[in-house]
């Protein structure tokens, strides 16, 4: 039995190492390509370590001047993305916290039926909503501005409500009742009792919103018109519309810069991320 167990453990290690190589390779290749001189990007066999580490690829990617597309204002894209993302996070955390509070800690007629309906809406594919939503924003004169990208965040979303409700329900009701006896209004209970206790869950919602907004491609593609309003996700897709002679080293450097903020946030908040995703799978 002992020997068999040892073999099993060894096999598990081998499998894990091989698989992590497969999963890590594309990202490492991106890093390697981003630091190569252009002449070394197309060598056979591929070179993993560049003979000369080209840190200058990064500033070059930021100030990339394409023959076909002209100057690509990477830093403007970055600023736009940061603005939209921050607005989305603020909107999403406040609205979802309020709504989840109502669904989990207040009693009112029709609450559970409405919550059931809310969860069911997660099945609706986004493309179905696309045309009327676009028409609506067009009617409001918002096409070409950032508003279609962040205003909806202030109106909560089914997934985040669901996630926060799970967490709010675990906070003992006695705490609310005690606060009520002390004469606190529901709003005071919400801000002074529940929100401080629910900080990790609110962070999870902030993280997911950050990811969703940073990565959003379809929204900017539909609503943004002027190149100076583009977000990173949309701007990055502009780098490769030119065919032939793609400067892969610069493109990979730009791609890495788009991913980098997410990686940094992930490494600081890894535990929250994992817990948040894990709870999303359970009813």
């Amino acid at each position, binding site marked *: 039995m002992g020997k068999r167990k040892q073999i099993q*453990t060894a096999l598990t290690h081998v499998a894990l190492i091989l698989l992590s190589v497969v999963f890590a390779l594309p990202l490492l290749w991106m890093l390697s390509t981003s630091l190569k001189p252009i002449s070394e990007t197309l060598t056979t066999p591929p070179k993993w370590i560049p003979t000369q580490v080209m840190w200058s690829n990064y500033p070059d990617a930021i100030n990339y001047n394409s023959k076909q597309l002209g100057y690509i204002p990477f830093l403007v894209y970055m600023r736009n993305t940061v603005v939209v993302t921050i607005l989305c996070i603020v909107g999403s955390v406040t609205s979802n916290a309020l709504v989840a509070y109502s669904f989990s800690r*207040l009693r009112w*007629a029709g609450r559970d039926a409405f919550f059931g309906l809310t969860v069911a809406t997660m099945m609706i594919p986004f493309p179905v*909503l*696309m045309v009327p939503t676009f028409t609506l924003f067009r009617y409001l004169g918002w096409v070409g501005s950032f508003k279609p990208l962040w205003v909806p965040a202030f109106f909560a979303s089914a997934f985040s409500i669901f996630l926060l409700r799970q967490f709010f329900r675990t906070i003992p009701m006695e705490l609310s009742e005690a606060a009520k006896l002390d004469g606190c209004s529901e709003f005071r209970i919400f801000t002074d009792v529940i929100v401080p206790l629910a900080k990790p869950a609110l962070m999870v919602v902030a993280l997911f919103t950050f990811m969703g907004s940073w990565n959003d491609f379809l929204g900017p593609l539909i609503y943004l018109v002027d190149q100076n309003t583009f977000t990173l996700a949309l701007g990055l*897709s502009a780098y490769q519309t030119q065919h032939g002679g793609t400067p892969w080293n610069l493109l990979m450097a730009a791609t890495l810069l788009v991913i980098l903020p997410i990686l940094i946030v992930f490494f600081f908040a890894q535990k929250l991320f994992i817990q948040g995703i894990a709870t999303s*799978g359970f009813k």
Partner: protein
Amino acid sequence: MKKDLRIGLLFALPWILGFIIFLAYPVLASLYYSFTNFSILREPSYVGADNYAELASDTVFHKALINTLIYAVGAVPLSTVVAIGLAMLLNTKVKGMSYYRTIFFLPSLVPMVALGTLFLWIFNGDYGLLNEGIRAANLEPPNWLGDPAWSKSTLMLISMWGCGQAMVIYLAGLQNVPVSLYEAADLDGAKLGKKIWNVTLPMLSPVILFNVVMGIIGALQVFAVPYVMFPGGAPARSTYFIASYLFDNAFQYQRMGYASAVGWVMFIITLVLTLLALKMSDRHVHYETE
């Protein structure tokens, strides 16, 4: 009572408005639009079921529909098997588990557009890392991006690389399986394969169902990665999906009524497949009684 209702609704107000403005209204409006001829330049005019009749004989739509179904049938099981496999390996509590978990999870954080860009490079037929590897093994590498027979496989492989989120959910599910069940199986002298089949998978089945349903919904809407990697659904429209066709009709051809009909067909297919998954799972999904 009345006061409770008022406070409850007040707190829920953002979502009540959001639900009406960004869900209920668009769903109903798109249903109405699907029976109209409508573009930015002109008001909707009622045309009955014309759009749906046209869809029934629209060969491009059929192609997009078949492509989407093939993609879903390939990508969902592939990512499910890989995600469960990875979660099981991680659940063996080997040393360095958190490092492995991070490595498997990281790719799922990469934005779709970055993912598309990166894999354009990796799958590049001439200089891509993957084909260099295949050539090094003395095999004839396929043209991943240029051959219609391979383009969809390329997208399926990419979706597999991003299965980290599902993996984390499976891992949490595995950690919830009571150890006593495995101990009982050990006492019965059950082998590893038997334990997986008779203990792990049944206990994990509600989580599998959740992930498969989410996977189906996601796969049917696939858009960004093919949009970035395969402009216009190239090669030979082999990567042209329902969402691509909907987008093109709405924003390229100015046919918003027709696009709405495409959207509703997509919605109905999603509903049918989801209900089918739930129905089929009736017999196989094991819920713990509380």
